[in-house]
């Protein structure tokens, strides 16, 4: 399967990429790792007239310790997030989630920025960043702005980014001694999650988010509220699906997904990893 014809442009800076996308407008799309976009183009579910390759903007591939949070450039690949000593030390939940994305070949190409910008609720990293209370930095023709991860996802493959805006940085608050768990239920190795859970807990404080439990990644606020008011993990996990709106598909019915969410939230919170 070969994608429909398109023009290929390569940007060497964020400013150049934004200038190009402003020039070509609606017909253009950014190409990062290409591991979500190219499969869609091969199936002709996407047919952009112009691809703007942003993967070589090396300025946007970095992981730094910024004090209260770690800053990750949007072009950083999953494999680099997974192995980064800074991420392993300060946001081990994110490193672990990154290690569950696809397979090594996918992680050699796919980027954290592409994963979040693509806004697929079945992806592991958007939910993980949501559980951790991430903030995103977007750059457009009129400068940069911050977007809270809770406000970012608008629907299936729809985000708060306008077509001429680029996601440039992901800021992850440090986890500071929290315990955490990442649970991914799938049938075959390398597959997407049928249901996934990213969760952390520090005393009565917690963050819990669900993969593939609706059209957007879901923050399970009822679980965190229950824990804050003294409920046990087992009791709180019963509320896992309260905010979710799962779909039924060939892998699982909505009811089964809700059951999985309750079980996986309990397992993730009971996990003693830190």
């Amino acid at each position, binding site marked *: 399967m070969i994608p429909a014809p398109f023009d*290929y442009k390569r940007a060497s800076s964020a400013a150049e990429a934004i200038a190009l996308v402003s020039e070509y407008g609606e017909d253009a799309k950014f190409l990062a790792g290409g*591991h979500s976009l*190219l*499969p869609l183009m091969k199936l002709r579910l996407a047919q952009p007239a112009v691809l703007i390759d942003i993967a070589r903007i090396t300025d946007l591939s970095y992981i730094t310790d910024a004090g209260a949070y770690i800053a990750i450039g949007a072009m950083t690949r999953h494999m680099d997030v997974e192995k980064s000593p800074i991420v392993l030390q300060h946001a081990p939940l994110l490193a672990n989630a990154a290690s569950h994305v696809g397979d090594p070949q996918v992680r050699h190409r796919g980027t954290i920025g592409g994963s979040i910008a693509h806004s697929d609720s079945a992806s592991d990293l958007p939910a993980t960043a949501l559980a951790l209370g991430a903030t995103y930095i977007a750059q457009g023709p009129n400068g940069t702005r911050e977007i809270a991860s809770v406000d970012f996802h608008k629907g299936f493959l729809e985000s708060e980014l306008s077509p001429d805006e680029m996601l440039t940085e992901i800021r992850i608050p440090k986890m500071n001694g929290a315990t955490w768990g990442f649970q991914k239920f799938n049938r075959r190795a390398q597959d997407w999650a049928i249901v996934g859970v990213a969760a952390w807990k520090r005393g009565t404080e917690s963050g819990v988010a669900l993969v593939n439990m609706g059209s957007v990644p879901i923050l399970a606020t009822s679980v965190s509220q229950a824990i804050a008011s003294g409920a046990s993990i087992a009791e709180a996990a019963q509320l896992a699906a309260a905010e979710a709106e799962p779909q039924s598909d060939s892998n699982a019915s909505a009811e089964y997904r809700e059951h999985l969410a309750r079980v996986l939230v309990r397992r993730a919170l009971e996990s003693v990893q830190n």
Partner: protein
Amino acid sequence: MKVTITVNGTTHESEIEPRTLLVQYVRETLGLTGTNIGCDTSSCGACSLHVDGESVKSCTMLAAQADGCQVTTIEGLAKDGVMHPMQQAFMDNHGLQCGFCTPGMVMASISLLKENPNPTEEEVRIGLEGNLCRCTGYHNIVQSVLAAAQAK
């Protein structure tokens, strides 16, 4: 568009359509048909090759994205008629039956050992999760990779 790609040590300048997939480029433009196409949907790993020393699925990458890069395919492994230690290990341990998955398995396995030179059996199995084999049941493939790690 014009791309300059070094494949197995030889630099090629080629005029290609931007939509040319890397696997198409090596198979059809360069005639290196050792890299197989299995699923064509980034699921099976048969098309795995190395770009700048790391395994990628070449059915899910544009040749344009490899412009200026070093590509290694299965044809580039043997030197002066002597097989790469990973190829030899697959042969010695019966790591293949029909051989269709083998080029991708060998390329993925070399990349795996580069990142993790002394993997456990479980790490080999997880490290090869992106490569499917319909024949062997994986056992001898895993043994081959462990043997290649030992041989180093």
